[in-house]
């Protein structure tokens, strides 16, 4: 005899299992299809696992485009943006939370303005500015704008909220010990801010990793491309996508981040929830 409590549990598990399909199936389909020969990709009935396992598409990914170079571009740009954002937003966030200097409120309004302005809005003048200084078809716009422009305002805001919530006592004790502001920030505030820094770092990295409009506006030569831009370039002579190759490239882009996520999912999700609540 099944009681009502476990009947409810079974119903909930069934509902969640069904809801999982749209979240899991695309990734599954992407990876398995990339190992199917072209003839099998659109076969009916569809095959959940490749009937014939081929890895040709993966070789072609690297032949058709400088894919390794593009992978490196995306990685180093995202790493540079993340490192810079962590440094500058934690410095600014700390100052706004702790140091009372004239004009702080006015300057913080500027941060809030950046928070509300989508970076897409300023893409036309940004393009012209970078054209004027000869930085088109370089990675500078993709590094500098996310690191210091509108997208970084949210990170500064999160860091300020976090530092405002820390108790004053530790810092007061350190000041009596004669530590300067920078030493307090570096040795006391930053180590306490690890959860906020982790969340800010993860989301800055993903933001840069996902950028698409900016690269297609700023970059024009394939060896400068980032991954999202490169993925859409695997097309045949008629502009139609070469599906198995596109899916192989997409898998190569998605799988490493997914693996890191599954290993560190606790930090990912709880870090986000934590900062989200504070912010």
């Amino acid at each position: 005899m099944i009681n009502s409590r476990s009947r409810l549990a079974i119903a909930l598990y069934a509902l969640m299992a069904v809801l999982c399909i749209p979240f899991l199936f695309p990734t599954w389909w992407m990876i398995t299809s990339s190992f199917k020969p072209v003839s099998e990709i659109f076969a009916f009935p569809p095959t959940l696992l490749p009937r014939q396992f081929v890895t040709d598409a993966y070789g072609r990914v690297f032949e058709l485009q400088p894919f390794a170079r593009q992978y490196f571009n995306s990685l180093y740009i995202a790493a540079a943006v993340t490192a810079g954002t962590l440094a500058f937003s934690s410095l600014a966030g700390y100052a706004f939370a702790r140091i009372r200097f004239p004009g702080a409120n006015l300057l913080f309004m500027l941060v809030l303005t950046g928070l509300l302005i989508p970076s897409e809005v300023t893409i036309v003048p940004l393009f012209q500015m970078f054209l004027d200084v000869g930085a088109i078809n370089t990675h500078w716009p993709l590094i500098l704008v996310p690191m210091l422009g509108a997208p970084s305002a949210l990170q500064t805001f999160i860091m300020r909220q976090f530092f405002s919530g820390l108790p004053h006592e530790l810092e007061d004790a350190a000041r009596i010990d004669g530590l300067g502001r920078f030493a307090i920030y570096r040795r006391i505030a930053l180590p306490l801010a690890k959860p906020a820094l982790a969340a800010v770092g993860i989301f800055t990295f993903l933001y840069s990793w996902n950028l698409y409009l900016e690269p297609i506006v700023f970059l024009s030569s394939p060896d400068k491309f980032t991954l999202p831009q490169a993925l859409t370039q695997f097309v045949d002579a008629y502009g139609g996508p070469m599906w198995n190759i596109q899916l192989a490239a997409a898998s190569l882009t998605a799988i490493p981040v997914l693996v890191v996520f599954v290993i560190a999912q606790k930090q990912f999700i709880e870090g986000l929830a934590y900062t989200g609540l504070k912010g």
Partner: protein
Amino acid sequence: MTPDRYRRGLEEAQLAHDHLLPSTSPDVRRSWWTPARRDHFTGYLFILPQIAGLIVFVLAPLALMAWYSLNEWNVLAGTFSFVGIGNYEKLATDPALPGVLWASACFSVGLVLFNLSLALLLAVLLNQKLAGTVVFRTIFFSPVVVSLVAWAIVWRFLLQQDGGINAVLRMLSIDGPNWLRGPTTAMTSVIVVQVVKNVGLNMVLFLAALQNVPQELYEAARVDGASRWTQFFRITVPLISPTVLLTSIITVAGSLQVFAQIAVLTEGGPGTSTTVLVYYLYQQAFQFHFFGYGASLAMLLLLIVGALTYLQWSLRKAWVYDND
């Protein structure tokens, strides 16, 4: 604590003390470089990179954009001439614009409603204290970390006429439509793809909010004989309403910035049925090279984002439960 540092600390404390209290000996001239001033200076140094970045990459472009929008500027033809409100007149009479705004509105409304309700449903399911919910939480969140373009490419593959979704439907003897080639199904598809990609973010924020609702309230309600539904709408919803406000502001703002998914899935089509404002701006400025007109479209986008954020913020009093 080293004696040296201790002495320095004492000196600083003494200096700060002197600075705060009127000096008893008028002949002692304090230097201009007081500890307070030094502290202000440190503050400015700390915020310098961020503020300089915001001035160069936000304020200056905004000012330039306002100026560009008053000029006729075709990059290909190399023409740049002052036209006053000419671009705004073009904006008002552009036959394509009502369709673009309608598509943006459909996308945003559909996305926000579907995203927030699915996020809340998933969060409530995960909050039932069942074994193994961490696995489900990981699965629901996983698309967030998949590269946006990779995600859109897979869905385009799945949504084709002979793609995976129609193949599954055919096995159930259902003839699926060509999802991305019909106006209604294209818009629905774009919304669903985007919701599945990002709903995990809001789900996690809702889950954290649900876990902060005090259990005593539910116990008290049970004692009073309130049903599960009453508990949900009378206790849960009011207590998580600040999170609903936060997530709705983030989601509305994000929905107006959608670009990559549209570019990969539909290229704004069929016709202009999925041409949202940012995609139209991109087409006008970077495909047709009308920079001046693109700038005035950007001003319009800015106005819409500002108005919606202000609206949500000022309406919060009406429906957000405030603890204080």
